């Protein structure tokens, strides 16, 4: 029996900065996974990935990442994807630092 489809987000690295970005429903790239389009349909996921990959002068390395629905939007399920939303654990660098400076 084929495995049932689990929800996804489209993610990539920004071309200029190299950091993690997620594709929104409005076809923009966000640095906050909670603003990403939460994809529950396999065929739609495939199309969105193809569309993301076509935007090659904005990003590199687009792929579908596992996600789950949180109170404020999609959340990562795997620790690797969780690290991508924050940054490294040895310094306050990357997204975790940027989030603090915004609030």
């Amino acid at each position: 029996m084929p495995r049932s489809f689990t929800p996804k987000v489209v993610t990539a690295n920004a071309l200029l900065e190299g950091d993690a970005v997620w594709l929104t429903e409005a076809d923009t790239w966000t640095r906050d996974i909670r603003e990403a389009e939460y994809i529950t349909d396999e065929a739609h996921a495939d199309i969105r990935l193809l569309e993301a990959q076509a935007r090659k002068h904005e990003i590199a390395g687009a792929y579908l990442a596992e996600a789950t629905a949180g109170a404020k939007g999609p959340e990562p399920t795997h620790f690797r994807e969780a690290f991508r939303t924050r940054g490294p654990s040895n310094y306050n660098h990357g997204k975790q630092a940027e989030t603090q400076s915004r609030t």
Partner: protein
Amino acid sequence: MYTYTDFDEAFVRTRVAQFRGQVARRIDGSLTEDEFKPLRLMNGLYLQLHAYMLRVAVPYGTLNPAQMRQLAYIADRWDKGYGHFTTRQNIQYNWPKLRDVPDMLDALADVGMHAIQTSGNTIRNVTADHFAGAAADEIEDPRAIAELLRQWSTDHPEFQFLPRKFKIAVTGAAHDRAVTKAHDIGLRMVRNDAGEPGFEVIVGGGLGRTPMVGKVLRAFLPKADLLPYCEAIVSVYNLLGRRDNKYKARIKITVHENGLEKMQELVEARFADIRDGFTGHDQALLAEIEAAFAPPAFVTKPTDGYEAARLANPAFRSWSDTNLSAHKAEGYAIVSISIKKHGATPGDATSDQMRVMADLAEQYGHGELRISHEQNVILPHVHKSDLPAVYAALREADLATANIGLASDIIACPGMDYCALATARSIPIAQEIATRFDELKIEHEIGQLKIKISGCINACGHHHVGHIGILGLDRAGVENYQITLGGDGTETTTIGERAGPGFSADEIVPAIERLVTGYLSLRQDADETFLQAYRRLGMEPFKAILYPREDKANAA
């Protein structure tokens, strides 16, 4: 030290200009990522988890003060004020922006440095004994040969698309500090019966998913034959090495599948074919390079001040006991600066620390610095009378940790905090282990112990050759850490043996503590190191410590 000729300078500048154009074409959309990727990798630029990463070659781990200061400047101007020294004697910047990279490369070229062939299926930066030119047990300074190999391998037209990456390490000493038996080619300087220096040529070593100890391809190779012989090896590998499966493409697999004898036959035949093409230009060049590596003008002066400081200051005594090594010149010592402060990231130095080390090298160290594969910085030539002043300056800069070779002097790859290939984190495990041993205050009692951590099977953290190796894996979406024991990266290279099931991130530090305190009660006396005790007793008693019976009963 070798300084760039006009040829080197022009070559590197041309390459930077080419890459500047390639970056511009990537940004304006005329190059796709698939087209750009091999070009950026040729210039040491990776795309990692959170950012780009620029890997800069530190040829055979040698730097002069101006270069170290420039590395600090680059860290401040285009990165986050620090750099990460790697297990291949290189330095990595973790946060460059794509647009800035050509400027960073130009800044490197200003001090005779580059990032060429720090990635891709080419001959990578040639590494060397980090005590080269200073070690008391050395036949000759191996860096002249390493520089010759660098010039030969850089942009070598035949070797830009090898089946897989290719790493060469060189040592001139009897005690192997360069892990030569875990390299594609390892070169160990030896003397023949007539007393002439030459090389034992080791081939097919490597770590990664299929760890292998290198095998001796030629027991004695005259120095003059080195370049044609290495060219013969790489040339044979280039044709014979597998290209159908990247996991079977390294020369260690080629040697394993074809056998050492077949390799010897093919290499000797190829060597015979090409030997005459090397008409002596390489030897003329080598003579010039050797002159550039002439030893500094060592001075003779009293060492009373050093002895007095050792008596007066217990902290200085402790540091000088652990962080100094025997130098070949009378009155001198080799200083290892620990970049492993307890709780800090192994191998990370701030720009301020880099400048302090550059100043110390200039003032007290005959203008030389080395990066070790163990992720520390070396001042190879310091007179003992200057050690109290060097120590005081290091203390000011938070660089005086007295732990070289001890439990907290841990090698760790960047792991999943940075690396896109990683399956688990390495850095926090290293930080926690070092912090724990510092709390226990037992690492001096434990003595020589090499703990090495890799965050994936590729083994950048050399876990296979750690006395205690830790391998971070992803087990069903959770970080899990496997322990190997009895590894050794010296002239008696041994691949560590897996102890048993892995530990969770919460369990791994207590497991290591249990193992090491358990060793203290197993050892014959205080002089028996962890590795010696393991070799005497075998896996069983250590396994019993790691996996106590009651745990098994609880789990059942």
